[in-house]
Each structure stands twice: as structure tokens, then as C-alpha cells.
């Protein structure tokens, strides 16, 4: 009924039924405008001013903040840390999830227990995970160094060695969030028609052959989606770093989100911090567009 009505109706005219459609959409639209569009525009405006948290200097200063940011070694370093984390966390977060899902998919007994134990850490708050790992990483009293010393490996200053700290955070993040990717992979694997495997085994394909020739290709759309979601999630890294190392040692783990927070809220320079966040925003948009382009080419 609605399609024939819509064909006769002029587009855009306010009828009773699309009025109530707007009515239903209104709560979302209001939130969208108030909490997304307005802050986005206001932030852009703010990045062009010298605004401080104390309210001093609201005047427009053009692109001075952007110019300062592009010459700011602190911003580049934190941006570099963010990208480094994204690269070294995305690979294990995707691969480990895939391996975990594949292991489970071969039909281990007590499936619910595996699914629960793989996914349960994801439900914890970042504060809990950070506290938990901070203790485990403690150089003197920590569980990990204690275990290492028992097998004769010298103590590692997990969160205090600039060369190790980022990896320590990746390990904590992996344990904490890999369950989400695992669940996506598992769902996708269980959707692959069983006939494919039957046919393959009749043709004499072994387990590895089946995995590489059926499972992996069938999972491609899921992999693309997981990689995209993971890159975006990793780029936004903040909580666990802030709580475990506060950006240290020597600024080696400070992500750009923390740098934005520090310049804006503890350094009071809201305008400057807004400029850095727009530079970061540009980077995220760029990554998303690239990813989107790749996905479209593949699916076309």
C-alpha cells in the first residue's frame, strides 16, 4: 500500500504519516544535532580562536593554532604513538580472534565455557583491566615477573621501559578486547554452509586445505569489517594508557587523545586542543575513506 501511495505523492510533502515518521525520528535527531552536529561545528569554530578554559581570549586567530600544531613535536610524537599502537595492536587483535574462533569452530566440547571465557574480559571496565594489569606488571611484586624469574628470565620493567611499555599495553588490550572480534568471526564461521566442507572432503581436501580454501575466503567480508572497526578503535586508544602509564615512561605511550586532553583540560588551551583534535579527525576520516575504497573495490 505504501509504495503505490508514495508514487503518487509529491516528494517532500508533509502528510500525516510522514509527520509521525519525523515524530519517531525526532528524539534521535535532537540528540544527533545537539550532541554531534553542534559540538562538531562549535569545535571547528573553537579551533580558530585562542579560547582558554578560564574563558580568556575568545577572539578569532585564524589558522594560528593549526600552524602551531603542525610545528609541535609533542603532537607529532603522540600521533606517532597512536599510529604505532594501531599497527601493533590491530594485527594480533584480528589474528588471535581468528585463531580462537577457528579452534572453537572445530567442535570442542563445552562450547559455552570457551565462548564465555574468551568474551568475558570484554565486559570489564577499562579501570578494572588497567588496575589488574598494573599489578601483574609490577616490577617487584608482579605475577608476571615472578613467573619469569622462576624460569630464569630476568625481571622486565613492563610499564617503565620505553621499549616495552607499549607492548605491555597491547597485551592488556588484546586480553581485554579480543573477545569482540572473536565473536564476530565465530558467527561468520557458523554461517558458512556445511555443504561446502562436505563437498571438499569428498574431493579429498584436508582440514588445512578446507580452512584456507573455504573458511578464509568466505570470511573476507567479516575480516574487512573487523579490520576497519579495529583500526578505528585502536586509533581512539586512551583509557588503558592513561591508567596504566599516564603516557609514560618518557612520553613513549602518550596517545594523541591524551595529548588533546592535556592541552585542553590541564593546559587550559581549548582552542589549540580543538585544532589538534581536528587534525586527528582528518586522519581518521582519511583512514575510513581509504578502507571504504578498498572494500568497494573488493566487493565490486
Amino acid at each position, binding site marked *: 500500500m505504501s509504495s503505490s501511495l508514495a508514487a503518487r505523492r509529491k516528494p517532500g510533502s508533509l502528510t500525516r504519516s510522514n509527520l509521525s515518521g519525523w515524530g519517531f525520528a525526532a528524539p534521535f535527531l535532537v540528540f544527533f544535532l545537539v550532541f554531534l552536529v553542534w559540538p562538531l561545528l562549535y569545535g571547528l569554530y573553537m579551533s580558530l580562536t585562542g579560547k*582558554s578554559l578560564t574563558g580568556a581570549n575568545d577572539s578569532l586567530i585564524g589558522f594560528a593554532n593549526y600552524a602551531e600544531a603542525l610545528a609541535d613535536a609533542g603532537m607529532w610524537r603522540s600521533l606517532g604513538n597512536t599510529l604505532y599502537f594501531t599497527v601493533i595492536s590491530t594485527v594480533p587483535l584480528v589474528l588471535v580472534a581468528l585463531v580462537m574462533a577457528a579452534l572453537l569452530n572445530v567442535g570442542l566440547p563445552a562450547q559455552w565455557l570457551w565462548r564465555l571465557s574468551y568474551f568475558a574480559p570484554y565486559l570489564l571496565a577499562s579501570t578494572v583491566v588497567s588496575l589488574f594489569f598494573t599489578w601483574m606488571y609490577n616490577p617487584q*611484586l608482579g605475577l608476571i615477573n615472578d613467573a619469569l624469574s622462576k624460569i630464569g628470565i630476568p625481571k622486565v620493567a613492563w610499564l*617503565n621501559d620505553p621499549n616495552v611499555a607499549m607492548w605491555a599495553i597491547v597485551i592488556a588490550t588484546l586480553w581485554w578486547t579480543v573477545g569482540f572480534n572473536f565473536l564476530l568471526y565465530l558467527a561468520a564461521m557458523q554461517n558458512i554452509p556445511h555443504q561446502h566442507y562436505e563437498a571438499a572432503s569428498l574431493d579429498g581436501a584436508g582440514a588445512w586445505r578446507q580452512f584456507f580454501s573455504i573458511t578464509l575466503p568466505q570470511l573476507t567480508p567479516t575480516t574487512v569489517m573487523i579490520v576497519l572497526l579495529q583500526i578505528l578503535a585502536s586509533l581512539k586508544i586512551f583509557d588503558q594508557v592513561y591508567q596504566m602509564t599516564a603516557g609514560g615512561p618518557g612520553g613513549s605511550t602518550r596517545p594523541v587523545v591524551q595529548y588533546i586532553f592535556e592541552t585542553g583540560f590541564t593546559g587550559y588551551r581549548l582552542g589549540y586542543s580543538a585544532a589538534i583534535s581536528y587534525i586527528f579527525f582528518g586522519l581518521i576520516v582519511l583512514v575510513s575513506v581509504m578502507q571504504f575504497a578498498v572494500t568497494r573495490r573488493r566487493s565490486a
Partner: protein
Amino acid sequence: MKQFELFPGKQLSRRQLLTGTAAFGSLLAAGALTGCGGNAQAAGVRDIGFWHLLSGGDGIKMQAMINSANQANPGFKVHPTVLAWGPPYYTKLAMASAGGRPPEVAIMHASRVPGYAPGGLIDPWDLSLLAEHGVTGADFAPRIWEKSQQDGKVFSIALDSHPFVMFYNTDVASKAGVLAGNGQLEEVASPQEFMDLAREMQKVTKAHGLSFGYLGSGSQMWRLFYTLYKQHGADITLTPGQPMKVDRDAAIESLEFMASLFDDTIAAKSGDISTGIAEFARGDSGMLFSGVWELPTLKKAGLPVDAATIPTLYGTPAAYADSHSFVLPRQLNVDEAKRRDVYKFVSDVLKGSLSWAEAGHIPGYQPVVQSQAYKDLTPQAHYANAADVIAYDPESWFSGSGSDWQTYFAENVQNVLLGRDKAVAGWGAFEERTNHLLSMPNPV
């Protein structure tokens, strides 16, 4: 048209649902409106908002002081909100004040006031109103009173000063033969003498002579560094638009001395605050460098503990310190009656600060410090002289307790203390970072 089937047997049309939602919404709104005000208002008792950053033992003491002030003053009721120390506290306080709806009174570290007062985030105190409750400038030690002021106005009222001191285990010290005739630790006057003293204690504990946890904590590194630096009789001056004025040799000498302590005999090569305290509490070291606020924890551990100011190793007695101070965050509309209540509340707390002293802090209010009851408190009385030699952070909008500046210090100096970097290089990088901050537009 498809109907919504919310209840079996009863169908609800879309129109009914929308009307119902609207009615429910207005009900909620009405509820929210009547929810304002609160019961206390109705009874004529004014609610005073009070933010502070005191947790653990400090928090319990503060709550007891608030309770007794509330009991003594039926006209108002102080409602504390406790926030986490450091950036979480200071950013929230700054934002609430910038928005004009902060609490009526708040605690701030005196060293953070220079970042708040010039920007108008806090109001000056009216000394005549304070005097009505019997509190005047003469009731505070000169250094502390001087620190309360910015441009000739009093912006903070110090509840205490809490210096960085040295705790020591009297059992270990006695076995090591380093106690003087009065039962207190014998005096040392040079870096070498201090290291010898620590080594003597190590022989008794078999672990370490000194505990000092610093890893990952800019505040800890800064507290000891600044104590040693100020003992050189040197100053640091931070003027926006100009490079930092500092005695570089004194800074480097202090850093090198600190690094030389972490040799796994005198002190553990790597330890954070909690491991440092735990080590001392276990009796695995003879001395602990820490803030006075650690006293309740150490007493609870049942240690034979005494305390003193950190020995003067470079000629000039000095101790890093800060003060928990009362400030008046700027209100959009000041409620005069409530502000008067705040003056009464603050003066009551100051006068009752003997219980605050039990938590280790040196009260700011001198009549308490001079009372016999305070003199009977040990080991508090043994470091009360610190109030005369305390050194607050150099003033600027970015310095002070829990500030990013202390974090930057850690970023550049931790590797020096770990023996991976030269003191000259670490200090140089910190100075460069500070100069960058000084060259930026001043946001307050």
C-alpha cells in the same frame, strides 16, 4: 495498518502510543522539577557544597571534621564531594568554576592557586569576615601566609602544610648504631655521610638502607629533587615569555645524587610508590622518603617509626611541601548567606585541625601547632620545624602538585634515575620542555 502488539489481547494504535509517550515525558519533567530544592532547604538549613581530593585516611579525618562542623552549626550542612587527586580534580574544578556553578568551597593545593587566581576562577577571601570568627593572618606561619596571597589579595586559607620528610625505623637505626643520645637519628650533613648512614642500615636489614618509590610518578621524583635542589640555596623562576631561570649545576648535582642512591644497596633500583612503602613497612629498609600523609599507614603497620625532615645535605635546610588550602571557587551568583556559612565552616575546621595533625599533616593554624596536645604528638612534633623551611613549587600557571609539569619532569628524568641517561641530558630536555611552555600564550 499494522498495530503494535504490546499487550496480548489489547491492541494499541500508533497514535495511542505517541500520546502515551508524550504524557509519560511530561510526567517525568514534572517529577524533575519538583525534585529540585531538596528537603534540607525546606527546613531552612542551607546546603554547602564542598569539593576535596582527600581520600584514604585523610578522607576519613576530613569527614570527621565536616561532621563536627555540621553538628556545631545547625544553620547549614556541608556536603562533601570527593574527587580523585591530580588532573581529574583540577580539571573538574576549573571547568565548574569557568561555568559559574562550582561548589561553595573547595580544597586546592596552594601551589595550584597561581593557575586559578589570575584567570578569575577563584574569589579572594574577605579577611574582615574571617576575623569575625577569630581567624587572622597572624594565626599562620609566615611562609604559609605569604603563599596564600596573589597580587596582595588572599586567595587561599591553608589547612596545613604537608612536607616531604624522612621516616625511619628506630629498631633498625638502633641496631645500626646510628641513633643519637636523644633517641633520634644522628645528624648527617653531606651526601657522602647520608650514603654511609644508609649503608649502615642496609647491613642490618640485609635488603636496603632507604626506600624511595618513584617509577612512573612525576610527583615523587619532583618532591625529592626539589628538596635537594632547594638545599643548594637555589631558586627556579618561571616567567611567561622568558626562559626558565635556574641554577643548572645545582639541578644536575641533585639529579646525580638521586641516581647514585639507586644502586640496589642503598635503595632498590626500580620501585614505585607502593613497593617503596611496602618495603619499609616490612622492615626491609631503615628509612623512607615520603610525604607526611603516609604516617597513618606506617603506624597501622605497627612499625617502630620516627620521622625527621630530610637531612640538610647541601648547606641550606629545605623541604618540598604543599598546603591543602580552602578556596572560594567563583560563583555566577554568590549566595551571601552561604558564603558567610563557608567562613564559619572554614574557621571551625581550622580550629579543630588537631585531628588533621593526627593524619601526619602540620596544621596551618598556629594556635593548634603551639598547643601542648600537638607537642605531645609523636613523631609529628619531630618534623614540625619543617614549616619554617618548606619550599612550594615555583609559581606559574602550569606548575604545582599533580600538574603536567611534574609529569614532564618524570618523562625526562626517569631514565637518569634508572642510570640509562646522563643527568645533563635529562635536565636539558626538561628545561627545553619548560621553556616551550613558557613561550606559549599564557591561558590564564
